[in-house]
């Protein structure tokens, strides 16, 4: 049979025919094309720009360029009081504001060594798990869009809408809550809130199954994501991955379980890792499946929290909030499990001022995205889209 091989710099294509070289094409000069994907591109999830070096449809290198949404979060924090940072943390990862607030509140509480009322802890867990579901719904829905399925996206947003309504009912705002304050909550939840959350859980279970049938089990979807963008566990850890991304690579690591905070130790839930039967461990499909399972686990956490929550009698959500927040001099690095991974806050206090000397947000997306260069090497453009989608970036958190 014929054997094809290439001589030189892609300038001649020859074929070897019984010891004789036959030139098929001369001067077949191929050039690499620089393709600027973004910052206005439908599937870069905001204002991410990828400078792709492409050879045909194959990507030789994709370099992420950030900063289009840089809002100087850290500089802002150095100029406002500790409680006033909370609304800014909402704007980091705007799809899961509650979780960001929770992480920040935990950090300052650690610095202050505060005791938090139990009901506050439970409400915090309930709202942040609701927000986690909302965030994963966006992740799954937009992932569908990235792969060309539009309908699951709208189903996801329909259900997210209810969660946003619930959170608005509790906090007064739909996305940027400023609800979890340092040492407490802005308000107690409304009277029927927990009942309605329970109803939501009952409502959402069949919808999640429907979503799974429509998107996750679809053969085209599986084929598009199976074995794409594989990240081995050790490399993932070296890249500092966390959250569903790390669990997608098969590492059973969840800060709610491994570095527990709040009331998570009392709650029974499963850390979702792919089993390797439906997907290659570490590929896009694993990450997607982890998110899908995590929604189910969040529902379980919410149910358990509603069962265990102390009664609201004599409860003041602001009782533990200090009058003036001025932590003693010291540093803290505190983290919480965000829908996108580990959101950490490094705070440094000088003990004199009511403003932090340094407040760094270790955003999960920023770190997860840094592996993009490795992940995208040698992939096709449609696969690149699938990989970006599976990282589930929120540019507000990447650029801060």
């Amino acid at each position, binding site marked *: 049979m014929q054997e094809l091989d290439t001589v030189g710099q892609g300038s001649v294509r020859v074929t070897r025919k019984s010891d004789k070289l036959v030139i098929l094409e001369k001067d077949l000069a191929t050039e690499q094309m620089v393709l600027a994907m973004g910052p206005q591109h439908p599937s870069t999830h905001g204002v991410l720009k990828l400078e792709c070096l492409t050879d045909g449809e194959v990507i030789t290198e994709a370099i992420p360029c*950030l*900063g289009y949404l*840089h809002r*100087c979060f*850290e*500089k802002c924090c*150095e100029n406002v009081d500790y409680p006033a940072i909370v609304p800014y943390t909402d704007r980091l990862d705007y799809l899961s504001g509650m979780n960001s607030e929770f992480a920040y509140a935990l950090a300052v509480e*650690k*610095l202050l*060594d505060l005791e938090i009322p139990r009901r506050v802890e439970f409400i915090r867990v309930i709202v942040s798990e609701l927000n986690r579901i909302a965030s994963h719904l966006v992740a799954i829905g937009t992932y569908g869009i990235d792969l060309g399925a539009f309908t699951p996206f709208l189903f996801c947003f329909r259900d997210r809408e209810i969660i946003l309504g619930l959170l608005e009912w509790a906090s007064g705002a739909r996305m940027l809550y400023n609800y979890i304050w340092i040492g407490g909550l802005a308000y107690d939840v409304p009277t029927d809130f927990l009942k309605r959350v329970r109803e939501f859980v009952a409502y959402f279970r069949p919808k999640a199954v429907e979503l799974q049938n429509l998107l996750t089990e679809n053969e085209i979807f599986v084929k598009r994501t199976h074995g794409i963008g594989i990240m081995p566990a*050790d*490399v993932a*850890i*070296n*890249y*500092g991955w966390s959250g569903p991304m790390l669990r997608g690579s098969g*590492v*059973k*690591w969840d800060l709610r379980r*491994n570095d527990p905070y709040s009331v998570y130790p009392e709650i029974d839930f499963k850390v979702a890792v792919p089993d390797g039967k439906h997907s290659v461990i570490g590929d896009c499909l694993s990450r997607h499946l982890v998110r899908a399972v995590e929604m189910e686990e969040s529902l379980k956490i919410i149910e358990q929290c509603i069962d265990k929550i102390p009664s609201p009698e004599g409860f003041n959500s602001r009782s533990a909030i200090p009058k003036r927040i001025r932590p003693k001099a*010291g*540093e*803290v*690095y*505190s*983290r919480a499990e965000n829908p996108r991974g*580990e959101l*950490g806050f*490094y705070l*440094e206090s000088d003990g004199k001022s009511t403003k932090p000397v*340094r407040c*760094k947000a*270790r955003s999960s997306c*920023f*770190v997860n995205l*840094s*592996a993009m260069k*490795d992940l995208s090497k040698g992939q096709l453009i449609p696969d690149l889209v699938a990989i970006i989608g599976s990282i589930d970036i929120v540019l507000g958190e990447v*650029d*801060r």
Partner: protein
Amino acid sequence: MEEVKEVSRLVQESTAAYRIICEQFGEAVSALDSNDTMPFFEVLESGRWVEIALFMRDHAKLKFNYMACMSGVDYPTEGKVGIVCNFQSLALLNHKLSVKVKCDRAGGCIPSVSRVWHTANWHEREAYDLFGMIFTGHPELKRILCPDDWEGYPLRKDYKVQERYHGIKVPY
């Protein structure tokens, strides 16, 4: 009650990990600041930072395979800028430790550990972008969040924002 026990365990583990590093490097590292919230030590000879980093990552009893965070910090009173790294041995030994490395404010250098932990690559770029310390040996040390031709290092305490950027008024 449980909270206190947890914290003390953190300090114990970190102290144990620190002792191993201290045995190896002795003078190059400072004493451990064993506070309750974030036990850390400082690398005094910043030139040996990569060596220490590799040791921390690969030593069988340390295994700090996960760099959770690296934050640039400005210390105007000391005339220095530095980085604070938070490490954890993820899924292996689960202990944590933090390390500080400092350098001079004007033109100071810190060796880059981006080859030890890939995640440090972007964290170091960010620290360079916002604080202006040079990471020697970094594969592509350029600004990451600010535009490439931005003036000054925004998170330094004495930063003055530039008046105009390409003809656009900056402080709005």
